[in-house]
Structures are given as C-alpha cells and as structure tokens.
C-alpha cells in the first residue's frame, strides 16, 4: 500500500463555511485516519477481517455518537461535525465508517431518542467510549426495501417479552455487545428492543465471502425464543417511523461519508495522472483524462454543498426524510461513478491493493444498496414531489 499522501480537495473554499471547531474535529479525524487506518486497512480488507484494534481510536476521535449530549458521554457536537467525521472515516474505508454510523445513528440515536432515562444512562456512555459496541436489526431475509412487512415478532411472556425471528445484513453483528432490534408485537405494531449478547437463544452468525465492505464484520441476528426483559423495550416511540428516524440520521452521515470515498479516489487519480507518463507527457495532459478529473471535482463540489446545506437543516431540525434521501442517493452514486472512472485512469494499477480505489469502488456497491437502495431513494423523491408513492 502506498503511503497516504491524501490532500482534500476544496474547490469552492467550503472550509470558509466551517467553524474553527468543525475544522479541528475534521482535521483530528483526518490525521487519525492517516495514522491508524490507511496503513492497515488494505491488509484487513484483503483478509476480510475487521480491525478491532481501531475501536478505541474511533471512540477517541468522537466517531461514536458525536451529537449525543455530553451528559450521556457524547461530545455534544452539531450535525456538520458528525458529517465531517463520517467523511474522514470513509475517506479511509466505507466499512470502518459503517461501524461508526451504526454505533452512532442506529444504536445510540434510538436509545437517546426513544429510550428511557435508565436505558440512556445504562448504555450511552459505554457506547460512546466503545466499551460496548452495538448493531441494528431491521432488514430481514424476506424484507429489505419493505421493512414494514417484517416477520420478527415478540409476545408478552409475563415478566418478559419472548422474541422470535431473524435479521440479515447486519453490520457489526458478529462482535456487537447489544443489538437494537425492531419487531412487531402481538398487535402488529413495530417496537424497538435492546437485545444483549448473553441472552439465551440469541446468536449472530457471520456472513462470509463478501466482495464489499470486507474490513467490516457483517452477519445475521437470530432470535430463538429470546427472553427479553421488559425494561429493554424502547418506550418512547413505536411504528415504522421509529426505525426510519434512525435511518434518516445514518443516511445523512452516509451522504458525507460518500464524499470522503470520492475525494480519496479523485485525489489518487489526480496525483497518478500528473505522474504517469505516456506518449511523452503526463496522462493528465490528455483531454479525456482532464474530462474525467474535471467532472469528478465538479460532482464532489456539488455533493459537498448538498451535504453542508443538509447539515444546516439538520442543525435547525428542519431536514426532511426526502431531503436526506436525495443527498444519500446523489452522493453515493457520485462516489461510485468517480471510483469507477478513477479506477480506469490508473489502468492496471487501479485493480491492485497498492491503491485504495478498487476497495472504495467495491465498498460503495454496498453503500449504494444499504440504508435504502438507489432506486428506493429516487421513489422517495418521486413520492415527495408528486404526493403519489410508487412503491405501495
């Protein structure tokens, strides 16, 4: 793997819109990724192993619940800081960012937003410090884009709930200490439950042979008559809107994360194109390569502005789910296209682990699918502007 000589593009001086604290948070995350992630990530991706040793570091740079208030162990930062941290981590690897996204938006966010005071005090500080790791169970083998059809259910067992069912494609599941799981009660209403690793009947088999997010641990959640204490039910929200609220938070972070992956591919391709000589001149001198690079920086700049504005709206509590869908869809698609173009610019070198591009490209195939597929997000925009949902 080449030394990480990444320089972040900022074509529209977006840094001028950031506060000093935003930049401090962002630069710390960037420095940490250069020091702790870049040197090892290719090796772990090749081995298809999750680098557990980086969890402490992720917690230290505030990647776990940065917007959770300080009283619950978070950093009390704003949404733009959260986005910038996700951008920097995904600049290193989408799989590592996925771990942080899940912990922040899909585990800490629902406990903070829908949980009881006791649940918040019990779990949030340990999740922020990385002492506990979490995962999120919504998707099922038969229910991906249509989570409302879920089959996982629980019934009242007197002093506990009895949970049965299975969840699939769960980031962090193989090593998570807790899982925030969405299941239907006997009336068919969706509720969130906190499942703990040592509960009897709960297992988390790992999903192997992925060609994507190889440095991230993915698995299943299987519930075979799991007795869940009643105090582990998230009391303050039920219905499909509850898990979708978590996804809004995660998708917002992904919109920033994808920019990170795109920036890394662009920066790598730009540097390579200026150094690689063919026909007596650097390939950056050729119009076809310039077209690729110019379009990349244009798309990155547009994506940066989209996420920055969305961050402002999130800070003001005004961002809609449909606006978040637009940013997630646009930015991940942008990053995937840039990864593919950048891969071509590097020729044969682009397929090797010497460069990060093909790893980003393969990772982004998951990112374009998870947290709402590319197509579903388009239909969310379609439903929003026409008032007519096309998917049900």
């Amino acid at each position: 793997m080449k030394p990480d000589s990444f320089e972040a593009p900022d074509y529209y001086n977006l840094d001028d819109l950031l506060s000093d604290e935003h930049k401090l948070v962002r630069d710390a995350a960037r420095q940490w990724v250069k020091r702790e992630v870049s040197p090892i990530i290719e090796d772990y991706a090749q081995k298809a192993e999750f680098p557990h040793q980086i969890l402490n570091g992720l917690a230290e740079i505030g990647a776990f619940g940065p917007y959770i208030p300080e009283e619950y162990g978070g950093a009390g930062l704003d949404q733009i800081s959260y986005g910038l941290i996700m951008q920097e981590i995904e600049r290193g690897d989408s799989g590592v960012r996925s771990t942080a996204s899940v912990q922040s938006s899909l585990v800490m966010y629902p406990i903070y937003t829908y949980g009881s005071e006791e649940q918040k005090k019990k779990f949030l500080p340990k999740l922020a410090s990385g002492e506990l790791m979490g995962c999120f169970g919504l998707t099922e083998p038969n229910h991906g884009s249509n989570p409302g059809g879920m089959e996982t259910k629980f019934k009242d067992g007197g002093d506990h709930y009895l949970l049965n069912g299975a969840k699939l494609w769960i980031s962090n599941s193989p090593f998570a200490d807790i899982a925030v799981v969405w299941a239907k009660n006997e009336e068919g209403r969706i509720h969130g439950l906190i499942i703990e690793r040592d509960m009897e009947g709960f297992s988390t088999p790992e999903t192997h042979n992925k060609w994507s997010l190889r440095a991230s641990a993915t698995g299943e959640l299987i519930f075979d008559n799991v007795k869940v204490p009643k105090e582990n039910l998230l009391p303050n929200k039920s219905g499909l809107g509850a898990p979708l609220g978590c996804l809004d938070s995660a998708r917002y972070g992904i919109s920033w994360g994808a920019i990170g992956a795109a920036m890394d591919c662009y920066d790598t391709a730009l540097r390579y194109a200026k150094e690689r000589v063919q026909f007596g001149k650097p390939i950056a001198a050729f119009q076809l390569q310039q077209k690729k690079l110019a379009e990349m920086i244009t798309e990155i700049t547009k994506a940066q502005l989209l996420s920055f504005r969305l961050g402002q709206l999130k800070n003001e509590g005004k961002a809609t789910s449909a606006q978040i869908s637009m940013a997630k869809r646009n930015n991940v698609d942008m990053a995937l296209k840039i990864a593919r173009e950048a891969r071509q610019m590097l020729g044969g070198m682009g397929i090797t682990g010497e460069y990060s591009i093909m790893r980003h490209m393969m990772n982004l195939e998951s990112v374009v699918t998870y947290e709402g597929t590319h197509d579903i997000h388009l239909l969310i925009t379609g439903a929003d502007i026409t008032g007519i949902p096309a998917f049900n």
Partner: protein
Amino acid sequence: MKILVCISNVPDTTSKINFTDGDTKFDTNGVQFVINPNDEFGLTRAMWFKEKQGATVHIATVGDASVEPTMRKALAIGADEGIRINAVPTDGFFVAEQLANVIKDGGYDLVIAGRESIDYNGGMVPGILASLLGMNFVNTCISLEVDGSTATAVREIDGGKEKVQAELPLVIGGQKGLVEESDLKIPNMRGIMMARKKALNVVEPVDATKATVDSKFEKPAPKGAVKLTDSVDELVSLLHNEAKVI
C-alpha cells in the same frame, strides 16, 4: 513545574507559496495553518511533563485572531491555558520581545520554543528570548529531562550529541528528538471539548524593536527540463561545459 510552550502558527508544509503586495507579503489565501512542527515536538514533551510530573503547561503565540484555531488545537492536545499577544509577528526580535514580556512575570520554570519556525526559518526567537529573560539556554535540543530544579538536555552538535545540565529556569530551542513523530498527539474528542472551556487570554503587545523590514520575497527559479543521456562522456561534457559544475 510551570512550562510555557511558544507556538508559532505556520503554513502547512504542503501549502502552495505565493506572495502579494509587490512580493512583500506572504499570500495566505487558501493556505492551511498548523502548529510549527518544532513547537509541536516541544508541546508533546511538555504534555509528558504534565502527565508524569504534574507540570502546568501554558502556550503563547504572537499573532492576530487568525492564529486562535492553531492555539485551540494546542489546548485540545492538552495545554492548560493560552496567551495570545495581539500583534502580527514581524521578525524574530519583535516576537522574542513580545514573548519575554508575558514570560517575565509568569513564574515559568521552563520555556520551550521550537528551534526555528518552518515558515521564515529565522531560528532567532529562543536565543533572544533566553537573553532578554536572563535564563539558561539550550538550543537544538533532542532530549530533555527535569529532576527538581535541574534539567538534563541533549543537544545536537556537528557530528554528535552533547549532554548538558542546566538549572531552571531554562529556555529550550526544541526539535524532533524531544519526542518522535509517532509520539505527536492527535486531539481527541474529550480534549476538543475541554479546550472550549480553557482560557485563551489576549494581551496587547508592548512597544518593541522592529529590527528588520521585509523588502521583497522571491521564489526559487523553477526547475528546468531534465536532459537524459546514456553516454558518460557526454554527461561529463554537459556538466563541465553547460552546467559548469565540474
């Protein structure tokens, strides 16, 4: 032990260097500023004294409000308090006089400055500072221990190292070796949060000597085209007749 670390706000080493105002001023447009690396080695060593020997660490910077992000980073790394002397630094003598003014009544046992800043590379501040303060001085320092009121320092000299002992108070001109690059601290979230609440005091400058004036900056001439040759005779001829270096 009370330590003051002098922090210079310098362009990141990857910055593109340009000048404005008829080549008399550095163009800061689009330039990222960082803690001067030689100062950062000193700051990191000061953090070691804080952690291991209970030292209190202050930082001081001569600069306008634009240097505060760099100072906040130093506070996020762990310095306890900052002093910003509200003046645009001109030359080394001016900076040293401003720093000496805040240090002289501060009760500091140890003043650590970088051997030189990586922007103008003057290398003057620590020496002038020691002289103005009447303190002992060790320059090009690559190792520093303090036991009671005695410091043991190793300095880099031509062809070797020199180990010296000096009584506190002491001024250090520090560099890589005080700590290694891998020891440099990345501000963690707890540090960033705590830095919000730490004092960053602004003091007005004293009248100071401006010993020099920048009259013009020039960039080195761009590198010319490379001429490749397979023939040793031709190479010798080119070096002798064209490059005129042999």
